[in-house]
């Protein structure tokens, strides 16, 4: 009997116009957005390659470039808006990348108001709405039409019926998600400039997994609301209001609240802190600077003085970096608080995992910046050879810049709460739907 219910529901859903319209829209948007985003990614990738070829190892300073992520074609996240270039030397170690033109962000401010439309958007907005549409009348419509009484007149418990509807609906939801994912992946794979390796494939598969959990949570929520309300129209309206709160209002509120909880220091405070931390060395630094200028003016060459200048400047940069890094950590803390406040929003949970998997989140950026710090230390080590062993300095080469990229396993391991909460939300909604349905008066 359970199988019959599942089959009937699947057939019913698949033949419904709401399924066809929802699926059609998702497929078109997933394909189109991926295609457009590939063009954007290729342009950024070309810029990156040109920059590497043109600028590598020139002058005293070192330029490091941040490679755009392939999966930004599916989940843009922060990839496009963060800068791609950073310049380091012994008197400068920034905590933020800049654009190639030297702005603080590559993504020009005139275009900053336009957010991305990508595969993550399709799942978050379009498919979640389609799921609500599939599930809102699954119980209440049958109650209104009287078919629920007839169905339950057979040897079928209410629990089994609900389970049947859940499995049938979930099958259709996952089928739609799979089709939309396949279309996006197909556009990606068929593009001659993009090669999809096993790592990428695994990441996309994991994205599918978290999307399935996300849509599952919306489907069980729809089932629950459908059991609570008797009129399908009321159930749908309640679901749409919940959807707006989850997708639009809640994340917005979380950001505003976090800005109140964690206060970010201003420029003046940061500069005061920097002055204070360098105060013990300032006199020595100033004297050295004066002596150095005097030496340069008279065309003299004092190795000891140059070495001292290098050491003091590097120390000053390191101390300033410490303050900047503390500030950067404050920013991360504020962001984490916003995420924690919005922890019950499936949309935030989905975004968190998707961006982590695509390498387009702030974690990836922070990892890049940690790599920059390590690279700076290696740079200092090499530069110091100039004053102790010039031959060794000339023979040595600065190692290639690398930073730790997260594997798929690490991405999953670092976001267990996202997966667990999404799963728990589904379980809670289903259990509540079951509890209401058991006691429901079906007329």
């Amino acid at each position, binding site marked *: 009997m359970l199988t019959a219910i599942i089959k009937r529901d699947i057939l019913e859903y698949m033949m419904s*116009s709401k399924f066809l319209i929802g699926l059609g829209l998702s497929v078109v948007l997933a394909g189109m957005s991926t295609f457009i985003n590939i063009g954007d990614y290729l342009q950024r990738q070309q810029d990156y390659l040109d920059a590497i070829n043109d600028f590598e190892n020139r002058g005293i300073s070192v330029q490091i470039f941040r490679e755009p992520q392939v999966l930004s074609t599916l989940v843009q996240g922060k990839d496009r808006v963060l800068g791609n270039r950073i310049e380091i030397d012994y008197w400068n170690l920034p905590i933020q990348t800049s*654009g*190639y033109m*030297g702005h603080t962000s590559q993504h*020009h401010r005139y275009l900053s*108001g336009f957010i991305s439309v990508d595969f993550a958007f399709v799942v978050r907005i379009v498919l979640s709405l389609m799921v609500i*549409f599939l599930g809102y009348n699954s119980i209440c419509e049958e109650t209104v039409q009287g078919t629920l009484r007839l169905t339950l007149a057979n040897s079928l418990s209410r629990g089994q019926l609900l389970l049947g509807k859940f499995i049938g609906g979930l099958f259709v939801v996952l089928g739609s998600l799979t089709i939309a994912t396949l279309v996006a992946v197909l556009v990606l794979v068929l593009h001659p400039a993009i090669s999809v390796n096993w790592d990428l494939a695994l990441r996309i598969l994991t994205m599918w997994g978290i999307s399935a959990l996300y849509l599952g949570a919306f489907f069980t929520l729809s089932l629950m609301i459908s059991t609570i309300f008797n009129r399908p129209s009321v159930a749908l309206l309640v679901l749409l209001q919940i959807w707006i709160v989850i997708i639009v209002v809640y*994340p917005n509120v979380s950001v*505003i609240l976090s800005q109140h909880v964690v206060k970010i220091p201003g420029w003046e405070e940061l500069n005061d802190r920097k002055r204070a931390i360098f105060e013990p060395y300032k006199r020595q630094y100033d004297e050295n600077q004066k002596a150095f200028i005097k030496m340069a003016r008279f065309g003299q060459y004092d190795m000891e003085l140059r070495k001292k200048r290098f050491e003091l400047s590097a120390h000053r940069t390191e101390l300033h970096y410490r303050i900047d890094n503390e500030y950067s950590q404050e*920013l991360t803390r504020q962001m984490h608080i916003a995420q924690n406040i919005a922890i019950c929003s499936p949309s935030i949970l989905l975004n968190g995992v998707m961006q982590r998997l695509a390498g387009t989140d702030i974690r990836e950026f922070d990892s890049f910046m940690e790599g920059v710090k390590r690279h700076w230390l290696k740079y200092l080590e090499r530069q110091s050879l100039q004053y102790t062993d010039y031959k060794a300095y000339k023979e040595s080469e600065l190692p290639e810049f690398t930073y730790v990229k997260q594997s798929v396993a690490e991405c999953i391991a670092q976001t267990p709460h996202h997966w667990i909460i999404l799963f728990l939300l589904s379980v809670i909604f289903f259990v509540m739907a079951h509890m209401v349905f058991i006691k429901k008066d079906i007329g």
Partner: protein
Amino acid sequence: MITIIKREILEHLQSLQFLILIILSILLFVMNGWISVRKHREQMTRYSDGVKGIAQNPSTVQASLYMHPNPLVLLADGGSKYQPPGYSLAPKGKLTPLPAGLKNFKMPFVPELDWAFIIIVIFSLYALLLAFRGISGEKEVGTLRLVLSNSLRRNQVLLAKYFSILLTVGIPLILGGLVSLSVVSIFLPEALSLMLVPRIGLMLLLTFFYLSIFVFLGLFVSSLVTRSSVVLLILLAAWILFVFVVPNLSGILSDKLTDVPSEYQSAKQVSSILKEQVWARIDKVRERVKRGELTMEEVIRRETDRAYEEGQEEVRKHYAGYENAMKHRANVARNLSRISPTALFQFASESLADTGPRREERFLKDARVYSSVYDNYILEKVGRLVGTSDWSFGASITVNGKSIDISSPHPQEYEGDKSDFPHFAESSPNLAYNMQQAALDLAGLAIWNLILSILAFAAIARCDVR
């Protein structure tokens, strides 16, 4: 017809969705008021400090020009978080955006909770939710036949439904607006003045004009399609396209449609400009020195200063060219997004509130006018104008065995009395001017209204009411 309007309004007011909307909209408008108060206070503090700073320390090297904070960001923020608080003006009209203060670039992107956003997302959806069953719902339960059996034309039924929906939506909208304004007037009374009332009133009218599109759309699809659930699905698909997809996709599409070199290509051109425009000119001076044409240090310095000055001019032009190209790209994106009524409403709201890129453009226009006054003042006090770019240069030239350090000239600070320093005044926004700016968007909204109203009336005229 009035009876139908009354009946419909009563039905809507008693519904659960109306109650939810009232609660949701009041909450959102309270938040909007609260956020606006905070934002305006911060902006006013920064503005007052900045203006005070200029008054105390006027400079002939550079002057900071601050944009006066606008309390109407409450209505339409217009991307104020991406806008600089003002511009730094250097001699020869070089304008550089002032740093916007420290912002958390790690924070996820969330749209500003202004009136425009609440109306675009919440109220447009609500208008659709009220309209989708307008005709098809009555057809399903059979009441449409009964209603039309009276001496009432189909057009009148449609009009009655249209007005009842707009009036129902208007209640939470006006209530929410009043709540938002009350929050601002309680916590920041100085921000609101009677001068702003016409703009707020026009914003409300604009909102009805915008929501009218969604009501007509809802009634049109409702007359066309028999099943209410399908009607709602079609309407939601249209809503997603109008509200989310078209306005945002246009940003990335404009990259394809504008012939602007990539940021890296533009950055790469800088080094060749420096080589060809700056160093080539300095090399020419060197050659003249070698040939013995220039022997006096003073003459050499004058020649190199001129060479640097001409080179800097080219560098400044390149940066300005890039900035203009990005503005052009943003304009293309905005024009593309005008396909959607949501974008039209957003831009018209920004014009009415005098926020967004157009406001910044107006400020820049004022700043350019002021720059000539500023340059004249410098000429009068210092005697010469020195233009700079983001780059400064230094080199040395050997004359008769003596090395002369030459560097790109910097503007000079006048050390005398600067009590007659020219004051920068931003032109005050004129409502007629702002309306003129909004004309194109208003025309777009009118076209949408016209098309959808014709379609809705045509659809109900041909609708099978059985």
